[in-house]
């Protein structure tokens, strides 16, 4: 694939693949595959856009393309896991966490199997493809399942680290939620140092007036927002809550006590998602603080190119800063 120049709006498939540098599941599994014969992977005709194919190229005998049959794929992954495999499944989040929800619940979560689901192009990343291709419910859905761990990494480096941990030391089902992979990274890749651990929030910036708790691609936007807020005199803590379940409650409570105001930001409906999960922790703690959830407010997204949609829904840095400013000064 030649390096091409492209417009930020492009959706041409192969340019898109080239741009999706943060979709690191396939390359990570390819790296781990030799020492971990238990890894198998599968997709449903989206192995290239999800970049799981990077594993399939290296280990064709352990890679299965199920065609457009997600329910069968997820359930077969459970069957594979029952034979001792760690089964990685990846397709667009709308066809995984939403379409195959019952299969995930009954065949994966209930038997508590080592199936790792990676929903890509989540939230509104599919832009003008429309609501059928958006996933603004998958956190709520998977979070409601007992045994399920729910992780929304900030970038490709984080995804790679968390997948590696999940292969080496973690048991049980995980739902990973990632975007289309062409976003700006938050973490600098460092072979010497693990920067993301399952269940441990990362405080990326300290602040005393407000804490923004974000997940997924909104972490980077929250950092941009913190810069703007700093200029407005609002000292903002930014927390990457990549693991939504089980949540790092200690970090949440500490932030609430120390900054007195918490704003959650997610590319997801505010019902049942990250914001709801944080709210549950706060309300049950008895700690009093200002609190607001930011995301989609019980609505389906407009049609548009992703770049403009994030602006429209105030899910870019400037938008989050404006929401935060209004919230803190209310």
């Amino acid at each position: 694939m030649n390096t091409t120049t492209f417009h930020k709006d492009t959706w041409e498939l192969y340019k898109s693949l080239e741009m999706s540098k943060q979709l690191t599941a396939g390359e990570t599994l390819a790296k781990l595959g030799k020492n971990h014969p238990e890894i198998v992977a599968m997709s449903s005709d989206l192995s290239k856009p999800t970049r799981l194919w990077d594993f399939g190229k290296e280990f064709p005998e352990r890679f299965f393309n199920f065609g457009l049959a997600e329910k069968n794929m997820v359930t077969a992954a459970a069957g594979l896991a029952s034979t001792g495999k760690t089964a990685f499944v990846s397709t667009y989040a709308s066809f995984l966490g939403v379409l195959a929800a019952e299969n995930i619940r009954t065949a994966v979560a209930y038997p508590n199997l080592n199936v790792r689901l990676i929903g890509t192009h989540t939230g509104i990343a599919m832009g003008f493809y429309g609501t059928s291709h958006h996933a603004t419910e998958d956190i709520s859905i998977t979070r409601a399942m007992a045994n399920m761990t729910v992780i929304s990494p900030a970038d490709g480096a984080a995804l790679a680290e968390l997948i590696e941990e999940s292969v080496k030391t973690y048991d049980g089902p995980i739902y990973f939620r990632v975007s289309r992979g062409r976003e700006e990274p938050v973490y600098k890749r460092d072979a010497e140092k693990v920067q993301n651990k399952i269940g441990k929030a990362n405080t990326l910036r300290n602040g005393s007036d407000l804490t923004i708790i974000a997940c997924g691609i909104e972490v980077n936007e929250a950092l941009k927002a913190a810069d703007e807020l700093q200029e407005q005199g609002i000292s903002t803590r930014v927390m990457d809550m990549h693991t939504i379940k089980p949540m790092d409650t200690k970090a949440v409570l500490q932030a609430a006590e120390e900054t007195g105001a918490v704003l959650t930001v997610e590319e997801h409906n505010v019902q049942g998602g990250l914001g709801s999960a944080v709210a549950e922790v706060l309300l049950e703690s008895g700690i009093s603080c200002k609190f607001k959830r930011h995301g989609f407010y019980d609505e389906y997204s407009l049609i548009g190119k992703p770049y403009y949609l994030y602006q429209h829904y105030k899910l870019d840095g400037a938008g989050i800063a404006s929401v935060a400013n209004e919230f803190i000064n209310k």
Partner: protein
Amino acid sequence: MTKTSSVAQNTIELIKEKAKMSRLETIRLISLAKSGHYGSSFSSSEIFATLYYHTLNYDSKNPSWKSRDRFVMGKGHSAVGVYPILADVGFFPKEDLDTYTQLGSPFGDHPDMNKIKGVDFSSGSIGHGLSVGVGMSLGARVDNEKYRTYILMGDGELQEGQVWEAAMSAGNFKLGNLVAIIDNNKVTVDGNTEELMNINPIREKWESFGWNVVDVDGHDVEELIKTFENLPAVDSEKPTAIICDTVAGKGVSFMEHGYEWHVANLGEDDIKRAIEEIEGGN
């Protein structure tokens, strides 16, 4: 079919007895629960007994033995007919069955792989089983294991779209180590399958998905044995569907063919009649 020797005759008699035991225990266990799946368990009794006393390769003292054959019930609601067999072959003590459906019991209406030794996969959501089997068969291939995976499905189950996703993928992946057993008892909860939502012709559907198809009388133990003994080689390229012609409620005259007995609770007199008929049956 020269394999039906005198030894096999003994086996046939043993399996018939064990099928009877499964039916009798089903009646006893359902009487503890006060509700259960008689009809669809009785249609599978000979299939269960043939699998566990003849066909399946397993070690009840080592339930997670990696090379064992797998058996998954797509029609998990027939579990009550399998539990007594699992106990009888030594996976757990028979007394454990007395807790059936009571608070905290491992034994519910549908089987749980994490609670019951010998259950290879949890089931209950109709239509999942064959997909699980596809995964198990792929797992066997990846590990170069020679075991087979058997999936029992009801004819009503074939109404689930996922079954055909799984059938397509099994054909596509050339899973000669996968066997679908269809308990074609011709009834579902609400009525007769053909009238309610017709899934016929069954044979042609499986053939068109690239499967090897065998028709058999699902209550004829000798035929079942022959069918299982003559399956294509594990490393052949076509999965096999065994379509078992069965009778819902088989063995109890007033239940036979009746969809009303899919889920029911027998009164004391009926229990007595049913036990007499089963004990006196062939």
